[in-house]
C-alpha cells in the first residue's frame, strides 16, 4: 500500500498514524504538500521516519516550493508528479491520510 501524507507532522497526527498502524510489507510512504516538512534533516520526525521500515518519498515540486532542497534528511527519495503517478500505479492500494 502507498500511504500519502499531505500535512505537516506539527499540524496533524496523520504521519504518526501511518507509522503506528501501517503494515510495512510492500508499503511506501509519500510526503506531499506540507507533509514534506517531516523529512527535514535534524527535525523531530527524522528518527521516526528512519525507523519507518518502508521507503520514504517526497514530492519534489512541494520540496522546492518550500526551499527544502538542501535540508532534507538522508535516505528519502525525490519524485516529481510523474513519479507520484508511478508510485500509485505500482501499489495495489493507495491511502491518503487526511
Amino acid at each position, binding site marked *: 500500500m502507498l500511504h500519502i501524507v499531505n500535512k505537516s507532522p506539527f499540524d496533524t497526527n496523520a504521519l504518526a498514524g501511518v507509522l503506528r498502524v501501517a503494515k510495512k510489507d510492500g508499503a511506501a510512504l509519500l510526503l506531499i*504538500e506540507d507533509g514534506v516538512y517531516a523529512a527535514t534533516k535534524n527535525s523531530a520526525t527524522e528518527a521516526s521516519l528512519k525507523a519507518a521500515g518502508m521507503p520514504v518519498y517526497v514530492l519534489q515540486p512541494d520540496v522546492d516550493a518550500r526551499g527544502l532542497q538542501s535540508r532534507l534528511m538522508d535516505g528519502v527519495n525525490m519524485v516529481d508528479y510523474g513519479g507520484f503517478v508511478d508510485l*500509485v*500505479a505500482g501499489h495495489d492500494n493507495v491511502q491518503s491520510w487526511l
Partner: protein
Amino acid sequence: MKFSIMVSEGPYTHQATDSAYQFAKAALAKGHEIMRVFFYHDGVNNGTRLTVPPQDDRHIVNRWSELAAQHNIDLVICIAAAQRRGLLDENEAKRQGKDANNIAPGFRISGLGQLVEAGIQSDRLVVFGD
C-alpha cells in the same frame, strides 16, 4: 491504467485541488486514463462557473473544465454537499425553486454512488483533501 480522483477541499484553500490537478495531468501525460473526478465536501466549490479569480492567478474551475473536455473526464459533484453550499445545475435550481444555477461546463451533479462506482471500476482511486 484507469484512475479516479476524489477532491474534498475547496479551491484556493490549501493545496489539494492543485495537487489533484497536477496529478491528473501527469497521469494523462503517462498514457493513463482519468475516468472520473469526484468532488465531495468543500470540494464541490471547484465546480461553480461564477468563480472570478484575479487575472494573474490560476483559474481552478476553468482548468478542470478544460482538462475534462480535452480528455473526456467525468467531473461529478456530490449532490448533498452541493445543496448545502449553493451549487446548482439547471434541474436542481428548478427542483429547489431557485432563480439561477451556477454549475461550470463539464461538471454534473450526482450522488455518492458515483464515488463507489469510481472505486470499483477504476484501478486506483486517489484522494486529495484537507
